[in-house]
């Protein structure tokens, strides 16, 4: 019996495809998310919008809180550690979380290196803004990728930018001659073997979700139509007027992302969406997506 293999780590993400992963800060939130049909929850002390408002250093959440949430729901529970903070990751693995998000939403612990994720039995998901970043993370052992967007804003523009970048670069890659791949690998700073594999298959070797700024069912369906495998919703649900209703509507929108009639139905009467921050008004120093190397 082998545990913690690449197959079971990547295979888990395959089971989440077509689903919504929701940020939750209490066991009550987790129950609402599960009842609304979330395929997994991300256990946090603060959603990204509050991390922004709070300022200071954002760290891994209290393991006690994460354990409470794990006890409350039967769906997978993910938790975040800081970029490069492999001891936070060891702690999260020790308490048995189902996935670790090495996340730019928390304050990075290392400004040069990400975690060597091959050494862990628990699978990792990592953020990216472009194909080079995605392949570097997969090279380090990420079993799942998400585009970063700009967390805690409720503005989907960066999520769109990053998803278009990754998927567009993959499309371009498939049209290249084999003798162009080494130079392209150098240009985007990605491992040659993974670039070649991506050129051959025309897709990433792991599941790719969208994240960062999804606030409405339409936002979620937009990301799905652009070609991602599923959606993370952070502040968008529990910072809105009616979380239970909005959570269920976003799940339905991701299931039926190509059916505008259903999207119209589920978008009705959801109450106030989260108050957004336009990404263009954010100074560079407050942008989370630039964290990661």
């Amino acid at each position, binding site marked *: 019996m082998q545990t913690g293999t690449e*197959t*079971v780590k990547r295979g888990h993400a395959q089971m989440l495809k077509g689903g919504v992963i929701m940020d939750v800060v209490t066991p009550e939130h987790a129950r609402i998310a599960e009842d609304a*049909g979330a395929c997994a929850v991300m256990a946090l002390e603060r959603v990204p919008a509050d991390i922004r408002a709070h300022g200071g250093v954002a760290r891994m959440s209290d393991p006690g809180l994460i354990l409470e949430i794990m006890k409350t729901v039967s769906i997978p529970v993910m938790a975040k550690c800081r970029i490069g903070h492999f001891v936070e990751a060891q702690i999260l693995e020790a308490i*048995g979380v189902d996935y670790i998000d090495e996340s730019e939403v928390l304050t990075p612990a290392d400004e040069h290196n990400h975690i060597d994720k091959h050494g862990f039995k628990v699978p990792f998901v990592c953020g990216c803004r472009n194909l080079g970043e995605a392949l570097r993370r997969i090279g380090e052992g990420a079993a799942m990728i998400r585009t970063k967007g700009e967390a805690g804003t409720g503005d989907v523009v960066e999520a769109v930018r990053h998803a278009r970048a990754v998927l567009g670069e993959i499309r371009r890659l498939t049209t290249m001659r084999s003798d162009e791949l080494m130079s392209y690998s150098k240009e985007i700073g990605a491992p040659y073997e993974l670039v070649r594999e991506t050129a051959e298959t025309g897709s990433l070797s792991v599941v790719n979700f969208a994240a960062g700024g999804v606030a409405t069912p339409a936002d979620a369906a937009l990301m799905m139509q652009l070609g991602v495998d599923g959606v993370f919703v952070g502040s968008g649900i529990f910072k809105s007027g009616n979380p239970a209703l909005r959570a269920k509507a976003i799940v339905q929108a991701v299931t039926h992302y190509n059916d505008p009639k259903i999207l119209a139905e589920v978008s009705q009467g959801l109450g106030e969406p989260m108050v957004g921050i336009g990404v263009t008004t954010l100074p560079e120093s407050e942008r989370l997506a630039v964290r990661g190397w």
Partner: protein
Amino acid sequence: MGKLADWYGLLEPLKDASKSVPLWGTCAGLIFMAKDVGMKQPILAVMDMVVERNAFGRQVDSFEEDLDMIGLEGGPFHGIFIRAPVIKEVGSAVEVLSRLKDGRIVAARRGSMLVTAFHPELTPDDRVHQYFLKMCKQAQEAA
């Protein structure tokens, strides 16, 4: 899965279909087909068995293991178990097809219904798919 099937009124049509259309559930699909899953959730309840969800623990306990499966030729099948369930009890009409070394049931069949706790779709080995196709042919001939 069960929730969406419930919201969109698919539980009854799927239950009806299972009487004439061959059905195969893997992992969550196995849970969806079981009569008893130990908790309240929307299920088809078409297969006479008691199931335990997340029977091996959490994701860090997910594993790969070679299995002997009745009806498959050519040696053991490489089973991939991801937060997998097990079958704790089966009704008298259900045939057990595969067990782990500790005896726990991970594949079973009743008529034209097949359940596997592992994920054959994550391996390049298509023998379980071939087995199901054979079941479909048998069902067609019987009809």
